């Protein structure tokens, strides 16, 4: 009896320990991640803190006013938190690889200082909206141009 109990206890102990060890503190990823400095990471987000500009309310703010500055030194528009590019969809009548997108585009002049932090160099920055109900502008898209030393983005039709 005694000789049977000891192995069973050892087996149970080993089983419990192995289960505890194998329970991950977080879901394991199917890929390896290395930081810029070479350190292995469990997650691509390890050790990083939330960025103020990537919080939901700020993203909504950028989206609502189309705060469209895409320089290295200011926040970009599309995918603002990523610094990625926008989609240069070609529209009818424009040459290839135009930074031209959308249809039914209407230009909306913005008041000085709105949409650009440099009202002197860029006194009349335009925004745009899309009006699908107006068939006369079906083939009108929007295209970016830049002004001022901080390269504010000004919308124009194309």
């Amino acid at each position: 009896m005694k000789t049977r109990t000891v192995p069973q206890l050892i087996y149970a102990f080993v089983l419990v320990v192995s289960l505890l060890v194998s329970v991950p503190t977080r879901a394991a990823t199917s890929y390896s991640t290395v930081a810029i400095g070479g350190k292995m990471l469990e997650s691509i987000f390890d050790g990083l803190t939330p960025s103020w500009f990537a919080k939901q309310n700020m993203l909504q703010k950028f989206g609502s006013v189309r705060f469209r500055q895409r320089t290295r030194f200011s926040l970009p528009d599309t995918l603002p938190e990523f610094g990625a590019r926008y989609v240069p969809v070609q529209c009818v009548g424009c040459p290839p690889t135009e930074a031209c997108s959308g249809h039914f585009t209407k230009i909306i002049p913005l008041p000085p200082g709105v949409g650009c932090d440099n009202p002197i160099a860029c006194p009349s920055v335009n925004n745009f909206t899309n009006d699908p109900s107006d068939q006369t502008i079906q083939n009108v898209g929007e295209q970016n141009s830049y002004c001022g030393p901080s390269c504010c983005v000004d919308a124009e039709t194309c």
Partner: protein
Amino acid sequence: MKRMKWEKAVLKAVIILGLAKQGVSQQSGVATGIAEPHHQAQFQTVASDGGFRYWDKGYLLAWAFSGTSLDVGPNTPAVMFYDQNGQGKPAYVWFEGAARVGVADAAVTSNGKLIVSGGTRTQEGIVAHYIAEIGDDGRVKHVIRTTPFIPVYICGGQGGTVWSYGFDRDENGNGIESGPMLRQFSFENGQLQAMLNISSLNPGWSLPEGKYPGEINMRCTASSVGIYNGRSSEWVQFDFSTKVLTVKQVDPLPPPSKLRITGFAMTDAGDIFASFHDRSKATPMSGLFQLTFDAGGNGKWNPVPGTVGAYLKGSPIERLIGTDGTSLIHTRARDGRVFWSKYEKR
């Protein structure tokens, strides 16, 4: 006296030979035309509007067009890559804990692996930037977190490493001007080296991609990585063997309102080509151009004979898609057909 004449003759011959050799070396890579296509294939993504696509080391890479997006989901293809027969495979990029994943660029490494770069964030607003290698199953296999470096463009360097052009961003989201813009990464050790400071360059690097997608281009070959900035009129090249970084001035192009770069390629031989779309005249023009340098290192875009003409109505080049190393891959019309053509040199 006789001996002096003989010496002069030898000296003269040496000088002539030297000049001839110099002349040959300057002219050796000058394209004299493109041959009739030796291969063609149909790619629907090339015919469709929008998105990004170019040919890199055996694949046509396409993203941000129908079926893929700049803003991808766990089961939305981030990038499609097609072989030379037009057969496509999707690549998915997603990270555990991510609420959003964006794609900035894609390329193929020297050992044939697809790589994708971009940014990702959590619901709480934690932002990370990445270069990911895609495995055979089409899913992420290895990741380099490049934060605080934002990899705008990537290309495959030597030994499976990745070169990236981009910029640093601080915790407030602002660009860091002093950050090196050209970096080499490995999936084992992260960043290997960094170089190219904006302070040593012409103005025109503040917009990471230029005024329009295509104004700044980056490509890797087996021997070097090169960046052409059409806005600052500079050619930047890092030679892998000599480890020398050179910056050369290039004659400025007309402004984007008149002329746009629609395609770019650097062949294994180091020849640099671009397709231009010129809309400065009543009839839009297109054609293939080659970047050549004079003895002083100044660059100039020269038309490749027989390629410049009315856009879609005479020019055999609608757009340069890339190179397979030796052939130039291009379109003639906007019908999705892609052609492989050798270029002739003198």
